[in-house]
């Protein structure tokens, strides 16, 4: 595989963003810590990915290892909150993150969990440049943090094998998202450190879809990910894309196996 431990000076990584997450990397695995929102969000995201992958490759989502023998890339893997469950579900997981500290945190944790995950410091476009391809590519809560959205989305597309799937989740650029994700989550509830998100970098679903198509990915479904404050639970809602949303698309070609 290609050497990806070198952080390119030009590319989609915004150095200010990398520095911000590195400072809090140690807290990734504390479910009551700074990443509590991601821990709470995780079951909904994993269930969605698992079910769509199982359906795409004709597998049983609820028994055994529904992702067995599929290669999966987790872009912006952070502390490994998504990479580890994907590995337990059977996938052969590669996690990339621009932050060396995140990759270190994730590697140490995965070893303790007896999970073999290939974590690398690097970027989506460097990996795409190398020609690496995966059955499933995840770009979750990451596109709103990159410097060059179009380049990033094109790189994501190139990383998916023909017939494979790409999953992406992010925040919509709406007034409601500004009120909830920035004012609410960062300032009122204190769920996220202030400055985590920049509303101007949020993307409308149509903008993401256009960017993905340019990279050869055909969007199949977009769902809203909605938080119910009373039950404190996240759920999927096809009719409410106003704040958090998730989509998946296919790369042209027949799925392998």
């Amino acid at each position, binding site marked *: 595989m290609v050497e990806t431990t070198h952080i390119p000076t030009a590319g989609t990584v915004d150095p200010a963003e990398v520095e911000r997450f590195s400072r809090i990397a140690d807290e990734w*695995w504390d*479910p009551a810590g700074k990443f509590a929102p991601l*821990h709470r969000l995780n079951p909904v995201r994993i269930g969605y990915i698992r079910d769509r992958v199982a359906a795409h490759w004709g597998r049983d989502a609820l028994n055994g290892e529904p992702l067995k023998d599929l290669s999966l890339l987790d872009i912006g893997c952070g502390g490994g909150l998504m990479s580890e469950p*994907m590995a337990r*579900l059977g996938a052969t997981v590669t996690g990339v993150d621009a932050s060396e500290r995140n990759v270190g945190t994730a590697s140490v944790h995965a070893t303790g*969990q007896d999970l073999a995950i290939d974590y690398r410091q690097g970027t989506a476009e460097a990996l795409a440049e190398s020609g690496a391809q995966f059955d499933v590519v995840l770009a979750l809560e990451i596109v709103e943090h990159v410097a060059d959205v179009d380049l990033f989305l094109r790189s994501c597309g190139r990383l998916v094998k023909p017939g494979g799937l790409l999953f992406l989740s992010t925040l919509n650029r709406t007034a409601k998202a500004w009120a909830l994700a920035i004012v609410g989550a960062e300032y009122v509830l204190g769920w996220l450190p202030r400055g985590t998100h920049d509303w101007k970098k949020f993307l409308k679903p149509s903008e993401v879809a256009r960017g993905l198509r340019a990279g050869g990915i055909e969007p199949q479904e977009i769902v809203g990910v909605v938080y119910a404050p009373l039950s404190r639970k996240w759920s999927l809602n096809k009719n409410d894309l106003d704040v958090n949303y998730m989509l998946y698309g296919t790369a042209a070609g027949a799925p392998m196996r």
Partner: protein
Amino acid sequence: MDRRPSDRSPFDLAIVGAGLNGSLLALAAGESGLSSALIDRVPLFAMTEQGFDGRTTAIAYTSQRLFAALGLWDELAPNAEPIRDIRISDAGHDGRASPLFLHFDHREASDDPETAAPMGWIVENRFLRSAILRRLAACPKVELVSPDEVVDSDRGPVRAGLVLKSGRRIATRLIASAEGRFGATREEAGIGARSWSYDQIAIVLVAHHAEPHRGVAQEKFLPGGPFAILPMTDGPGGEHRSSIVWTERTAIARRLLELDEPAFQAEFARRFGDHLGPVAPAGTRWSYPLRLVHAERYIDTRLVLVGDAAHGIHPIAGQGYNLGVRDIAALVEVMADAKRLGLDVGGADTLERYAQWRRADNLSMVAATDLLNRLFSNDIRPLRLVRDAGLAAVNRVPALRKFFVRHAMGLIGDLPKLIRGERP
């Protein structure tokens, strides 16, 4: 603790204590695809080799659904006596046959009286134990580790380990303490408990009586504490039997337990009454000092408390084991859900979901049984008038009656799938 290469991949669950809670947890977990090691210092099958020891368990309707979902009920049903009616009465210090105040019929919980399920069942513990163990022995997901015991443990952020007396080391994602209310694990983990003595002893025994009980459970509130008569299956010789939970003030109970057989029988018959003809205690007199123990937390890093290890309650409502069964159903469901999502089955997120789910349900039962006992275990005249008025009021209001019956059956609250009779 060092990790030796001989360690196999960690179990999902290491269960300490193979009583009725621990063994049922291992089976429910195994049937849901979770691996476990079940550890007990007593050789497991020795527990079932003895004959009937006089101890029985009340199985609420919802617990029965879990047994059915796990495929255990067919074996238990012939040895389970259904409770069709519950009669509750308030008797004074003279123990006289008391006026009937409250009468629950199992048909009240259902909209269709014809198909109504019993409110619960009484089963001898040995039948429960052997049915569960027989299934465990054939369950590939469960490893029975007995006789052996835990001498050291280590719980870390990513896994837990146990060192056993035999020298064996067990790696696991989660340790479950099912050791009962006197288990050491809770205190060793630094988890405190709300705990107080009721200054009562429960005398448990079996009574033989001339007339059949017709599925009626009776609870007589005597000044020293409740006297419960629970219908059992007929004995091997066709004798009509009931299981007795006889609560008395500690000092009086101690004197009773020391009485010779004729004197004990006279005291017993006076409280039992003559509604089932001549009656006599049979077999062993068991005694249990009553104490409430409610753990301040049910979870810690890679540790979970289930059953009486989390909450030992007053037996006044016959709900002790049923709360444990609900703990088991909830724990297995949160772990199975986590496993299907590739999440850490013993991780903090998973355990937090269990703790939140069980806390409110257990707390309400702890409080209700405690309140009932305080309200009834006395002979204070104004309190008697109030509680009798309360019983009479409940008796006259159908909606309240239905609520109480459904509560006794365990049908109230957000029920885990196994408790709804489904597989998680």
